[in-house]
């Protein structure tokens, strides 16, 4: 049920926009949690299972939180791009912009007890699992305030209490790990699931060149599958909810998220050798996840154009603040080279390179 027009004019979203806190909706009008039914962009295509319905129930609160979270993620990735070009981020940087709907939709369907494990394109997934922007930027810049103390880098984001298991650099290495997470969940019978994510590629190459069969959701006919429009956060949410129920009853299921990244594979890939710029801008115009939510918010009259712009501005400000704070954080101390190699108490001495200087005891 849409909110009345007068209500939306009176209130502006004033809540500070921390993604680690639950999204506080400032509208005191109680109908903001009324359910709204949204149709996904396209029906699901299923393989060996019954597809879920196209109608997804949501609420104004959820729509706004989706918008906020995705705007924040988008801003974060673009800021990371500039930081990389300014040589504050070195090494590898794989950006997620364009794919925010997957992270946000998945998060809406599951709990923090469910595990997510992914590959190296992990900045936004970390955020959606309860990470903070400061941790992200500090880690990207190799500072101590990062979630891995600056020792991991872009590809090694983890958050144990959020159920986010990384963050892996070697392509495909996270899939058996994800299997292990699920095994442990089955073992302890705690009715949770694991989402092991992996991409269709890991190179600056087009899909048709790298994969034998691009119908990933069919996966050689071993496991049931569902093809989902990954640019539609509600489709993702519905699919993940369905997948969780299915997995708890029947075992593994493949979700093929048809998503799109605007940047190249990594910062060293221009992303234009295997696709045209028209393709990228076409997707941006027609399938952009944030635009879709924006249209929904406007059409259901939940907020005005100006308010949404304010949200985006707030996101930008938040990201800038986080970057500034992260820049203040110092580099790790040299003694930290030897911390966390082993768990505390091993007591092995490590000599410096010449066996005389820089003696440190492993903690």
């Amino acid at each position: 049920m849409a909110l009345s027009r007068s209500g939306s004019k009176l209130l502006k979203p004033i809540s500070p926009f921390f993604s680690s806190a639950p999204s506080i909706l400032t509208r005191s009008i109680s109908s903001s949690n009324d359910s709204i039914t949204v149709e996904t962009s396209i029906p699901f295509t299923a393989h060996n299972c019954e597809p879920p319905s196209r109608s997804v129930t949501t609420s104004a609160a959820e729509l706004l939180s989706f918008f906020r979270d995705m705007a924040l993620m988008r801003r974060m990735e673009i800021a990371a791009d500039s930081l990389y070009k300014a040589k504050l981020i070195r090494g590898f940087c794989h950006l997620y912009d364009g794919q925010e709907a997957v992270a946000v939709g998945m998060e809406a369907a599951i709990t923090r007890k469910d595990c997510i494990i992914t590959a190296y394109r992990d900045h936004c997934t970390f955020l959606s699992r309860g990470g903070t922007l400061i941790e992200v930027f500090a880690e990207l810049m190799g500072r101590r305030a990062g979630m891995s103390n600056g020792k991991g880098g872009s590809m090694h984001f983890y958050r144990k209490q959020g159920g986010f298991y990384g963050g892996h650099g070697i392509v495909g290495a996270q899939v058996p790990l994800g299997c292990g997470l699920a095994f442990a969940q089955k073992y302890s019978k705690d009715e949770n699931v694991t989402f092991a994510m992996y991409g269709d590629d890991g190179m600056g190459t087009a899909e048709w060149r790298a994969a034998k069969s691009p119908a990933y959701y069919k996966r050689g006919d071993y496991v049931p599958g569902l093809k989902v429009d990954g640019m539609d956060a509600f489709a993702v949410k519905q699919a993940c909810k369905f997948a969780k129920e299915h997995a708890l009853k029947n075992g593994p299921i493949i979700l093929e998220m048809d998503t799109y990244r605007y940047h190249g594979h990594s910062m060293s890939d221009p992303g234009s050798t295997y696709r045209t710029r028209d393709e990228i801008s076409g997707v941006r115009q027609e399938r952009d996840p944030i635009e879709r939510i924006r249209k929904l918010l406007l059409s259901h009259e939940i907020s005005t154009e100006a308010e949404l712009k304010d949200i985006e501005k707030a996101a930008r400000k938040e990201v800038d603040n986080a970057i500034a704070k992260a820049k203040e954080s110092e580099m790790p101390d040299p003694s930290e080279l030897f911390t966390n190699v082993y768990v505390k108490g091993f007591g092995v001495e490590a000599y410096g390179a010449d066996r005389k200087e820089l003696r440190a005891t492993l903690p």
Partner: protein
Amino acid sequence: MATLFQGVGAVTPFSASTSLHSNKLHLPPRKSLSLSESRGAIFVHRSDARLNLKPATPKQDLLIPNAIATKGDTSTPTKSGHELLLFEALREGLEEEMERDPRVCVMGEDVGHYGGSYKVTKGLAEKYGDLRVLDTPIAENSFTGMGIGAAMTGLRPIVEGMNMGFLLLAFNQISNNCGMLHYTSGGQFTIPIVIRGPGGVGRQLGAEHSQRLESYFQSIPGIQMVACSTPYNAKGLMKAAIRSENPVILFEHVLLYNLKERIPDEEYVLSLEEAEMVRPGEHVTILTYSRMRYHVMQAAKTLVNKGYDPEVIDIRSLKPFDLYTIGRSVKKTHRVLIVEECMRTGGIGASLTAAITENFHDYLDAPIVCLSSQDVPTPYAGTLEEWTVVQPAQIVTAVEQLCQ
């Protein structure tokens, strides 16, 4: 008259800039001539496009190579050479071998259409086709195994690991099949494969992408390992590895691809088992390879100013060690310092220390000092990463302490 090109000559130390200019065309002195006599295949490509073989090598069916524009047709062998970067030298070696022998093929991730993630195979797919320069999916175990299988039938594949660390996924193939098949088949199958790729600690690439696999592979019986460090030896070792009947793992380094050097126009092939004398000296033998060579040469500059005379040897051949060159040096200086990028535990330096101690114990005046990387996963933070590898200052300190 055979002109021999060996890696002799002074090398200017590696400074903050990443280019290396050196005129390597000093004709080697007499003594190295005799050195090469005692070892195997040094090929000389004459200007009239005939291949001159040294007697130690078996006869092969040779194709007359096409005339390539850069090769001097009518001029004398000692020309000024041409300048190029290390990855271009690798490409040149690769291209010459592909031209020479139609059985040579390349396979790896992004080698064909993309041109190679470090541009080593750029242009080759357009020239030789999609099958000879094969783009593989991200399945290291599978395509390394595929390369080994192809080698068993007589092809000479070159498998490129986009980063050496990814070859850990192919360890089973490399250890069990690559190394062992010649032995377990009683000599029936040879595996003339070359596995190459960049490894080593780069600029903040993270732990998984900064691995030094030479320490893990060194125990595998049946394979040979070489590490290149200059454009000159990169091209020579690439060609030698391709022509070798044994499986060879060629270790390149991520940070060395843009080194510039002048290399000869004539064709040359280096010996796989030979070490390179970078700087002769009297006081201490410094053994090193790959990127650490440049840290050593930078330290050598400081050491020379302080009055020391280090002898720097780039061991190049990581398996087997060139104990002949190393031994002669140890017998001269009686002090050994090993500088490597491997981890301290179980690294190349550890094996080299054991080998030298076993063979030349009587000639040592002091215990062998081995400077290696710390036994930690390479951290992402720049300052920590610097502490992980050996820095020139530490080399200087070590030499001073060794020579007391």
